[in-house]
């Protein structure tokens, strides 16, 4: 990935930081720039941004060879999320369906941020074909993030909660 002096200019760290700021400011999901054979592509990873998250996860891809640009991802992979501390475990949806945080509209959510959970603790319901499937945490720890909204459709493998397994 060595480049000519102009390419080094192109990949100037300050410039990239400005692009990242611009993405955050304008809530962009992807920036793809090319100059000659050099290319910068910055794209948000798949995980939905949390309210109040300190940093927006960003992933920069290396400059691509000339030719057609690689296709955008239809739905970025949950696994494309930035590396997390290994004590954080994601509770993922085991099926496609509708996410419900509580057993019924009048009840409080099964779990909220700060709640302790064990492997058997029901954390939510995913409704598929009129069947309300109770989803267990399958891990012990503390809920540190709820990643989906009540009533939101979720696909297979969609991260639902973040659990801090240290506590």
């Amino acid at each position, binding site marked *: 990935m060595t480049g000519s002096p102009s390419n080094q200019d192109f990949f100037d760290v300050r410039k990239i930081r400005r692009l990242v700021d611009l993405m955050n400011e304008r809530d962009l999901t992807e920036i793809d720039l090319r100059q000659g054979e050099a290319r910068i592509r910055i794209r948000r990873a798949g995980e939905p941004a949390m309210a109040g998250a300190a940093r927006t996860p960003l992933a920069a891809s290396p400059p691509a060879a000339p*030719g*057609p640009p*690689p*296709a*955008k*991802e*239809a*739905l970025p*992979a949950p696994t494309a999320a930035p590396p997390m501390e290994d004590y954080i475990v994601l509770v993922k949806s085991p*099926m*496609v*369906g*509708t996410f419900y945080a509580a057993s019924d509209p009048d009840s409080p959510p099964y779990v909220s941020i700060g709640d302790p959970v064990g492997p058997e603790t029901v954390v939510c319901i995913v409704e*598929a*074909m009129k069947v309300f499937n109770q989803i267990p945490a399958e891990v012990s720890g503390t809920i540190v993030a709820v990643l989906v909204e009540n009533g939101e*459709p979720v*696909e*297979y*493998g*969609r991260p639902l909660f973040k659990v801090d397994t240290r506590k």
Partner: protein
Amino acid sequence: MFKRILVASRGEIALRIIRACRELGIETVAIFSEADRGAAYLETADQAFCIGPPKAADSYLKIDRVISAAEIGNVQAIHPGYGFLAENAHFADVCRSCNIEFIGPPHEAMALVGDKNAARALARKIGVPTVPGSEGLVHDEQEASAVARQIGFPVLVKAAAGGGGRGMRVAVDEKALAASFKQAEAEADAAFGNGELYLEKYVEHPRHVEVQLLADAHGNVIHLWERDCTMQRRHQKLIEESPAPRLDDSVRHAMCDAAVRLIKSANYTNAGTVEFIVDRQGHFYFIEVNARIQVEHPVTEMVTGIDLIKAQIRLAAGEPLPLRQEEVRSHGTAIECRINAEDTTKGFRPSPGTIHRIYPPGGFGVRFDSHVHVGYTVSPFYDSMIGKLIVHQPTRAEALAGMRRALGELRIEGVKTTVPLHEQILDHPAFIEARVDTTFIERTWPS
């Protein structure tokens, strides 16, 4: 008309259906497995949901997951494409009981024609010729041997629930029959969960000719002429064309007429195909009905100018057929080569991998239906077809020349493909003169 359709398939046929929907102004919901995540064609849908892990049994074949995706996607209909759930009568029934239209025939008609035994019985009843064979299922080797003596060797042992050539065996004498029976039974049981078999006369030097049909829910059935799919290897089609070369016009008309009668008497609606084999004397025999859109449907689209996917959607929405039989005309010759990611020098072994270069052909009369792109990974989980190259020209000679030219332009790097074999077939005098049968490829390029 439907507002939103779920496409319950993957790859090129998913893209083909999404394209038709977009032209009709219908929104689309795609589903995909983890192995297909990131495929570019998913972006052409309005929404896409991951429904499971790569294994088809846990994703594309999982009825509850498909229906669940249809419900959260709020669709009015499901197009099953081909493969996976396309000919699953139970799935069609489940869709409709969830108030989601299944774009295909009624599940009763699908179950009837899907049972080859019942379909043959129906054909015989209405005077459509079938290959001489057992009256229904044969239950053991003794019964098979008695039937074989009566109809004469060679005989073909076939799975009642079969398709795509699986569970089929040719036996030339009594000794071979005993072995074939056991093998076919085990293979059918493994592939379809149903080891039931039947027996029929093995027609020598057969050609495979099939008739495309469209039927509406108002009792109208039309045929869209025939396709010749003789160029197959182990019952997997490689090249299809329309019209069938060297087919007597009286035979062509008789076959198309027989196919219409069969579809009518099965109370079948939507698109379907009736398959026949034809011997050198022009005798034709009914083989089976394919209750779905077929891979090779573009060949018929090119010669008739009728978009079969749009027709399927309109028929499922209850619209009548837009044209009468005498208005269906066939122009010129269309030919299709299936481009599979396979190593033809190593027994057609699948060649999964990442495509790092692709240059699709173009120009007059060339159509390339493909979902692959640079960076696309051909996964080992599904069938190996990566594209269909279709050429339409005024005459067969011109179509063959056009196909040779288009194959020469096509560049795919990263995986091995069937293109070199297609080029050899296109140059072979027997194929050029249409003096071939369904064993031609296996005999000429044994592997």
